[in-house]
């Protein structure tokens, strides 16, 4: 039973570029949430997808967008990359929007902006 898988594991981009990160949830999970973790800080919630819709969004600009596919996998897109976007991006999956259910995290994508 595969857990949450994320790709790629590492990525290097330059300022102004665009990036797409991918996440496949744990089997049986229908909800995907994305987090940004800057060095030395706790993960910060970006948004959550359920039934192919963005259900809640954290305090992130519109440059951050996402998508959920019918098979529950998800993408995180970041446009016009800034140096400050350098971080570990974590995907978490759960069932039923995480209400009363634990979240399971992938190993993350480490994004570096030059």
């Amino acid at each position, binding site marked *: 039973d595969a857990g949450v898988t994320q790709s790629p594991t590492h990525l290097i981009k330059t300022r102004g570029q665009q990036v797409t990160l991918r996440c496949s949830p744990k089997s049986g999970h229908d909800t995907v949430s994305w*987090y940004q973790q800057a060095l030395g800080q706790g*993960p910060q*919630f970006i948004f*959550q997808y359920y039934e192919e819709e963005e259900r809640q969004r*954290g305090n992130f600009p519109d440059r951050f967008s996402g998508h959920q596919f019918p098979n529950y996998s998800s993408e995180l897109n970041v446009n016009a990359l800034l140096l400050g976007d350098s971080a570990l991006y974590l995907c978490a999956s759960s069932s039923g929007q995480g*209400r009363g259910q634990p979240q399971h*995290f992938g190993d993350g994508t480490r994004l570096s902006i030059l």
Partner: protein
Amino acid sequence: GIQVEQSPPDLILQEGANSTLRCNFSDSVNNLQWFHQNPWGQLINLFYIPSGTKQNGRLSATTVATERYSLLYISSSQTTDSGVYFCAAKTNTGNQFYFGTGTSLTVIP
């Protein structure tokens, strides 16, 4: 959103010692989890514990929901316990998980 505070921020232990990590949250929660983040950045689920007490080997956790805090106990610590421990909580009124700032644990041999 809710505030999640963890203490202590840093902890250094001799191998074999016991420790207690605390997580305070500012509102009623329906979901609380403890995680261990290893040096490679992997977030490992330790406990899903919105209330009550659970034990898993040398680790145990207690959440007193009415008093809005949770405790993580580590007994007979090992060097492999080193890393950052996070608690994260979600309220009944939203889908957003809020993480604390973490406790950085170093276990020395």
